[in-house]
């Protein structure tokens, strides 16, 4: 009896091995702010990622359908860790999208420990480039943005004294350090800096201090609704210095704010008029689907999903299993990726390098002033 069962088991096992590969469903994770004061970003991020899923599935890039399991981080580290734990242990994803510096840093430990790839397309804290092999960035980080805009303001605009209003979290702290480093190198000076809690909404007192500092430039390093409140209250309270912000400010609500007029912001340079097939398809389909022009954030999460599609397809082509380890190995073996914005490569630290544009907000839109390329 036992021998007969053993034989039957062996036959079934052999039959399974001999069967052709069946379509495998692919699920990747995404930990975005879907509620709370930063939920507006979640909608922006999802629109890019969802479009990439549509394109990958329509093109039959993978052996089976691709889908995204979304979890809500509220842009806070603690809920993000809970979400990452669920995605890793319950959903079993090999690849997870993340956003916000604090969130990305919080989940990076779990990503490394479980060999799951985490990909950031929204946080720009400079130290996100140092979170290990399993944490990648498809967005240029804030150190590059600062290194593009600060020399421009000091050398070309003659604005030498800076004040910094920064959020009291890993992003703000990193940007504070970066500004303290860069300014002396280019002949500028940080005359004052003001750290504000992540939950603060009242900045008229800070505005009074900023005004008293006499700075030529006020750099705002916050995100979400708070950065808009800071800008509005600075202007309302008589601060007429040049206001500057990083790419986090390039959201529709911020660009439409009357007080944003004349602000200088930075962001990755993406040529939306490019004729390359990937960019053209993205721009056309995004505009048609969402009835608005895409922004860099839409591009980043579209690209992040495209990267997964390309790597997973390469692994499947070689008959391998799509795991975090395999994705990392495949990325290292892939010299370049055709993404929105052109053909790009990952640096050794897992961060994509894009040129940085310095832009000015006029009439509710950001217009490029100059573009800076880094090696």
């Amino acid at each position, binding site marked *: 009896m036992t021998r007969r069962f053993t034989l039957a088991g062996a036959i079934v096992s052999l039959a399974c091995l001999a069967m052709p590969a069946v379509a495998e469903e692919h699920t990747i994770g995404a930990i975005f702010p879907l*509620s*709370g*004061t930063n*939920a*507006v970003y979640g*909608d922006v991020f999802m629109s890019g990622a969802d479009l990439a899923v549509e394109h990958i599935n329509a093109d039959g890039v993978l052996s089976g359908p691709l889908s995204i399991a979304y979890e809500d981080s509220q842009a806070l580290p603690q809920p993000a860790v809970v979400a990452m734990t669920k995605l890793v242990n319950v959903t079993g994803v090999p690849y997870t999208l993340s956003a916000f510096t604090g969130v990305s840093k919080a989940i990076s430990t779990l990503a490394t420990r479980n060999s799951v790839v985490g990909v950031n397309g929204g946080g720009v804290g400079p130290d996100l480039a140092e979170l290990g092999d399993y944490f990648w960035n498809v967005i240029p980080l804030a150190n590059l943005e600062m290194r593009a805009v600060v020399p421009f303001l000091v050398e070309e605009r003659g604005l030498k004294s800076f004040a910094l209003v920064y959020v*009291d979290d890993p992003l703000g702290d990193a940007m504070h350090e970066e500004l303290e480093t860069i300014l002396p190198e280019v002949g500028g000076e940080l005359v004052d800096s*003001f*750290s*504000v*809690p992540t*939950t*603060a*909404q*009242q*900045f*008229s*007192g*800070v505005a*009074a*201090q900023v*005004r*008293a500092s006499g700075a030529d430039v006020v750099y705002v390093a916050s995100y979400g*609704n708070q950065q*808009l*409140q800071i800008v*509005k*209250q600075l*202007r*309302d*309270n*008589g601060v007429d210095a040049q206001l500057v912000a990083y790419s986090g400010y390039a*959201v*529709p*609500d*911020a660009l439409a*704010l*009357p007080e944003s007029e004349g602000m200088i912001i930075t962001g990755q340079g993406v040529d939306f008029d490019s004729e390359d097939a990937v960019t053209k398809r993205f721009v056309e389909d995004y505009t048609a689907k969402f009835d608005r022009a895409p922004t860099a954030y839409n591009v980043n999460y579209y690209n992040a999903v495209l990267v997964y599609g390309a790597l997973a397809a390469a692994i499947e082509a070689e008959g391998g299993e799509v795991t975090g380890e395999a994705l990392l190995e495949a990325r290292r073996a892939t010299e370049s990726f055709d993404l929105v914005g052109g053909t790009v490569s990952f640096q050794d630290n897992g961060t994509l390098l894009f040129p940085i544009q310095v832009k000015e907000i006029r009439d509710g839109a950001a217009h490029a002033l100059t573009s800076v390329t880094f090696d």
Partner: protein
Amino acid sequence: MLAIQLAITGLQTGALYALTAVGFSLIFGSTRIFHFAHGATFVIAAYFFYGVFGAGLGLLPSIAAAGLGAVAFGVLLDRLVYAPIQRHEGSFFTVFVASFGVGIVVQNLIGMVFGRGFVTVNTPLSRSVEMIPGVYVSPLAWIAILCTAIFLGALQFFLRRTHTGMALRALADNPELVRTFGLNPRMIAATAFAVGSVLVVPAAVITSATTGLNPAIGHHVMLISLAATIVGGIGSVSGTMLAGLLLGLAESLALLVVDSQWTEAVTFAILFAFIIIRPAGLLGRATAH
């Protein structure tokens, strides 16, 4: 000059804190309902104003819409949520959880209707002008201080000089005695919710033009209201009013001595100090248990 500037800024902030906090204190003091959804009342008033004003219907209809929205929400919440729970011997904690839940529902509904991003009412009244060298004050700051004086003065008159106001104070002291005098405690409670809700309207309208709005702003309003109610003395409307002003001033003037990231903590440092040193609050009555 910086100290004068911060004092004026603090006064404006404190005036708005006082208005919202007094509304909560009045409701809590007279009904003993921990109306956590008071923050949601603020959000409703602010977004009703924003919506109607944005539709181009003018200032007065927008303020009227904000007032109607706030009062209707407060009174209906009392009638449809709090009263049934209390009829079924619901505990203080049950009422609190229900109120908390309503606050979250309102936040999400507002987010669905108006979006979850930052919105603001654009008006030249929010732009500061230089009064004396180095001191900037916006017309809205004066309006905020004036509104607070008018509304809180009217409230004091209402509570001390009208029968309904006296009934409200009586309800806080002894609900059974109120019944003995033939008054209906439920009707008086509804009045408390209506008056308490109206008080957030000027603060909500002014905030929509100064700091701007997002659906989650109610939590901050509620925290400040709670802190001011405790610091002022639970049940003391005058104490809460003073505490609101004190917290606004302290938050602003703290910038002279501490880093900007600690200004919010100042509110809670004052709260803890009162809890430890003077638990009855500024004008509250000490009780022995």
